[in-house]
C-alpha cells in the first residue's frame, strides 16, 4: 500500500443532499467513491492525486433498478451483480448482463457500480459500449437541480466528461427495445475472466422488412473514450440484412477508432480485431 494514509480523508455522506452540499461547498476537492474497485487500485499504488474522498455507498437515493415509462432506470450505485441478477435487465438488455458478467470477477461485480464504471471514464470499461448501443441517457444531479445528457455525448475526451464538479450521476436511463431486436456483445481480453478489454464491441439493431432499420454500435478500448461507431452505423443503416456492405462497414469503422499501442495490445491488433468482431456481429445479424 503506497498511499500515505494520514494525508487522506474520507467523509461518509448520509444523504444525497449532504453529498451535493459538500461537493458544491468545495468544488473539485472531494472525489466521490462508491464501490472503490477502480479508485482503490490507483490509491493502493500511490498514484492517486486525490486525497479527499466522499463515500456515496450509503445513499439509498442512488440505488435500485426501476421501470420508468419506456425506460429502465438504474441508480448510479447499482452493482454489476445487481445488473446480472435483475430479471428486467435480462429481459430487455442482454448486452448489459453480459458486460456486467465479464467485468472483473465476482468480488469486483459485487462492489463495482454502473455509475462508477461511467465516471471512472476508462475507455476499456465493459458496460459503456452496451450503454452506448442501447442509447442510454444519464441523469445528473447537483444542488442546482437535475439535468439529462445523452450518454453518447457525455464523454468529451480522455477522462473528460460533461460533469460539473458539483454534479453526480444519479441515474442511468436505458430505453427498452421495442419488439424483436438483435443484441450483440463481445469483449476481447486475452483471458476469459479478470480481463481488461483490448477490444469491446456492443451492438443493438432492429430489422424491419429485411432492412436494417436501427443500429447502434458501442466500442471500447479503441478510442480515448467509449465511442459510438457512427461511421460504420451510417454505412449499414437502411441496408438489406441479406446483403450487408460488410467491407464498406469495416472500412468506415476505421474512422470510428483511434486505437493506441499500450502494454495491453497494439493499435494494429485493436484495429484489425475490432473490424473482425464487427464482421462477426454482422454475420450473426444476418443469420439471426
Amino acid at each position, binding site marked *: *500500500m*503506497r*498511499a*500515505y*494514509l*494520514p494525508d487522506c480523508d474520507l467523509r461518509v455522506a448520509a444523504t444525497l443532499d449532504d453529498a451535493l452540499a459538500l461537493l458544491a461547498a468545495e468544488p473539485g476537492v472531494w472525489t466521490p467513491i462508491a464501490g472503490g474497485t477502480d479508485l482503490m*487500485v490507483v490509491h493502493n*499504488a*500511490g498514484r492517486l492525486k486525490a486525497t479527499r474522498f466522499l463515500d456515496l455507498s450509503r445513499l439509498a437515493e442512488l440505488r435500485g433498478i426501476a421501470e420508468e415509462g419506456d425506460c429502465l432506470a438504474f441508480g448510479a450505485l447499482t452493482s454489476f451483480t445487481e445488473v446480472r441478477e435483475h430479471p428486467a435487465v435480462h429481459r430487455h438488455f442482454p448486452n448489459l448482463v453480459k458486460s456486467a458478467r465479464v467485468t472483473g*470477477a465476482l468480488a469486483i461485480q459485487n462492489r463495482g457500480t454502473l455509475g462508477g464504471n461511467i465516471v471512472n471514464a476508462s475507455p476499456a470499461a465493459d458496460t459503456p459500449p452496451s450503454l452506448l448501443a442501447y442509447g442510454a441517457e444519464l441523469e445528473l444531479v447537483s444542488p442546482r437541480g437535475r439535468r439529462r445528457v445523452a450518454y453518447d455525448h457525455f464523454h468529451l475526451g480522455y477522462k473528460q466528461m460533461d460533469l460539473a464538479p458539483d454534479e453526480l450521476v444519479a441515474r442511468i436511463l436505458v430505453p427498452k427495445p421495442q419488439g424483436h431486436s438483435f443484441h450483440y456483445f463481445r469483449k*476481447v481480453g*486475452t*483471458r*476469459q*475472466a*479478470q*480481463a*481488461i478489454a*483490448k*477490444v469491446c464491441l456492443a451492438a443493438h439493431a432492429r430489422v424491419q422488412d429485411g432492412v436494417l432499420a436501427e443500429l447502434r454500435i458501442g466500442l471500447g478500448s479503441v478510442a480515448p473514450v467509449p465511442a459510438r461507431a457512427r461511421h460504420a452505423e451510417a454505412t449499414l443503416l437502411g441496408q438489406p440484412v441479406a446483403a450487408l456492405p460488410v467491407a464498406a462497414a469495416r472500412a468506415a469503422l476505421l474512422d470510428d477508432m483511434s486505437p493506441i499501442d499500450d*502494454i*495491453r*495490445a*497494439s493499435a*494494429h*491488433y485493436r484495429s*484489425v*480485431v475490432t473490424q*473482425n*468482431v464487427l*464482421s*462477426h456481429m454482422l454475420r450473426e445479424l444476418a443469420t439471426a
Partner: protein
Amino acid sequence: MIGASSHRKEGRAKVTGAALYTDDKFMPGALHGVTIRSQVPRGILKAIRFGEGIPWDEFTIVTAADIPGKNLVASVVHDQPFLVGIGEEITHMEQPVVLLAHADRHLAEKARRAVSLEVEELPAILDIQSSLELQQVIYGPNNLLKEIRIQKGDPATVWATAAHVIEGEYRTGAQEQMYLETNAMVAQVEEKEGQTWVTVWGSLQCPYYVHNALKQLFDLPGDRVRVVAMEMGGAFGGKEDYPSVNGGHAALLAWKSGLPVKLIYDREEDLACTTKRHPSRTLLKTAFDADGQLLAIEVDFAIDGGAYATMSPVVLSRGALHAAGVYCAPHVKVHARAVATNTPPPGAFRGFGAPQSLFAIERHMDICARKLGLDPVELRRKNFLRMGGTMATGQVIREDLDLGGIMDRALAEIGYHDKRAAYAITNQEDDPIKRGVGFSVFMHGCGFTGSGESYLASVAGVEGLADGTVSILAASTEMGQGKNTVFSQIVAEALKVPFDLVDVAQVDTDHVPNSGPTVASRSTMMVGRILEDAAIGFKQALVQQGFLKEPYTAEEFRAGVQRAVETLGSVKCYGQYHKPANITWNDATYQGDAYPTYSWACYAADVAVDLDIFEVKVEDFVTVQEVGRVVNPRLAAGQIEGGVAQGIGWGLWEEVTTKQGRMINNQMTNYIIPTSADLPRIRVTFLENAHPAGPGGAKGIGELPMDGPGPALVNALEAALGPLRLDEVPMTPERLLARWEEVSHG
C-alpha cells in the same frame, strides 16, 4: 507408504488460515523497510538526495557505505552488490541504492518517493543481440557471463553430404514466476555477549544460500547467522537466489536500527525487480539422411542473463544439456552463451533453461518433419534415444527407455490421428475457428547438473522426539510442492511405521543440516534418498542399542524411541549424499553423465484458434510421463497440473513487456496468468519405471511439466493454421496476428 496419496502434512493449517507466512510474523517494535532503486539502466551514481517534508532523523537509512562485511551477494559468481555506492556503476533500472526503515509503514512509503538519485547516465544494452555484438562492453571482456561448448563427433563433416540440412531460429520470452506471496523477509540483529547475531525469517527456497550471503555481508562465522524458512506462498525458482538479496537488505536495516525489520515487497516492486525466466534465442541446424535419420545437430543457444551472473551459469548449463532434446545423432555440437545486459537479472524458474532449448528443438523437429514430408510422429520415432544410445555429452542411456511407447500413449489419449484427419476437413470450412493437435517429447535431468550434487554433499537426518515420534531434519523447504508430505512418506516407509509418526522439523539453520537448495527437482530423489539412508541408520541404531526389536508395531516403535530419547538425551541419525559409482562427469570438457537420470515425457495439446480475434483456447491437454516410482500420486499430479498451467501461460499469454529493460506491465492486471476459466482439465498419466538412484525408485517431477507445453501448443497452432513463422513463445494474440499477416491471408 510410498505410492499412497497421503494428505498434505500442513494442509489443515493452510485451510484454516493458521499457517504463518512471513508477513504474518509480527514482532514488537518492528520497523517497515523500503528500497530505493535506480531509475536508469546504466550510469554512475553521483549523489543521493533526501527531499523535504520527511522527518529523516526518525529513519534508519542504510547505504553501501554502511555495509560491515563484503558488499557482494554470495552466489555462483560474487558479482552483485547489495547496494550501489556513490561513484559506483548502476547496471540496471531496479538496482537497490538506499534502504529506509520506519515504524510507520505509510511514512516509509512516503519517504521512498522523497529520495532522489543523481546519476551520470551511460549507454545501455538491453537485448541478446546488442550484447553479442558488443555494442557496449558492460561485463568482463566480452559481455559473457558464461560460455559452454559440448561436442560429440563433428557436425562439420556432414553438412556438405547430408540429404537435408534444415536451419531455424527460435525465441522464448521472459516469464514471471508469479508466486502468490511476494518476496518477504523479517530480520533481527542482536548484540549479545559482545557478538553480533543475525536472524532472518523469510520466504525462501534455500536457507543455506541466504545463510552464506549473510555471513559474507556481515563478515560473521556461520554460527552467528540463523535463517528460518516461514511457510512459503509459492516460489517456482523465484525464491532461490533473490532471497540472498532482500534477506541481506532486511538484515542490514535490522543491524543498523537495532530493531526487527519487516521488508515485504508489494506486487509492483516484486514484479519489477525480482528474477524472471531468462529470455533466449536459439539457432538450430540439423542434417538428415534421405530417410529422415538425424546425422547432426548444431545448436547456438544464447540467454539474456541481465546485469549480474546470478544463476545464469547453471541455467545456461541445463539449457545446453537439454538442447539436443531426446534425440540421438552421431554428431552434435552445442555452443551456449549467457550474455550480460543492463536489465534486472533473471534467475531460477522451474525448468531452469531447459524449457528454452527444448522449445527450440521440439518446434524444429515439427518444422523438419514438414520440410522432409514426414509425419512428425515418425520422424521423432526414427531418432529417439534408446538404451545404449549416447547423448551429446557421451552419457549412455542405461535404462530401458521407450520414448516411442510414451509418445504413442499420449497420442492415443488425445486422439491425435483421428483429430488430425478430422481437423484437416473442418479447417477448410468457412469458420473463423481452426483446430489443431500438436505434441512434444522431452526429458528433464533430475538433480543438479554435472558434479553439482558431489559439490553439495548434502546432509539430512532424522531425530527421535520425546513423544516417540520422528522428526525430519533437512533444509529443504516446503513451497507447496509437498516436500513435508513426501519426505514423511519416505521416512515412514523406511522405518516401517505409520505416516502419522513422522513429521518435518521447522527449517531453521540452527537446527537442520544443509540438505542443499530446494531446487532442480532434486528434493524427492536426492534428499529423499539421503533420508531413506538416515532413517534406516536410525532404526538400526535403535535395534543395535536394544531400544527396539524387529519386527515391531507402531506402538513398540514409539515406546522404543521414547526410551532412547530418555536414556540418551538426543537421538539423531544423519545421511549424506554419495555419488553413485557408475556416474562420471568432467566439468571442463562437459563430457560424461550430466545427470544421474532423466524423467521422460510426451505432452499433447488440442487447440482452437479464433481467427477473428487470434485467441487460442486449449481444449484438451494430455501429459504422459515416466518419472520413476511416484511417491504420492495426488501430490505428483498436482505438480504436473500446476506446471502445465504455467507452461500454457508461458506458451500463450505471459509476456513481460519492458521499457529500458524494466518490466512495465508489473501488475497482475497486465501480466496475464491463467484463471480457472482459461484452462482445461489437464490429464495426467504416470508410467512408473523405478530408478535405483531415488528413494523407492523415485525420480524428479517438479520441473518436467514446464518443459513440454510451449512446443506442444505451438506445434498444435501450426497444425491448425499451416506453416506460419511460429518460432516464439509466448504466441500471444498480437504475435499470432502478426505472423498470420506475414503470409498475407489478407
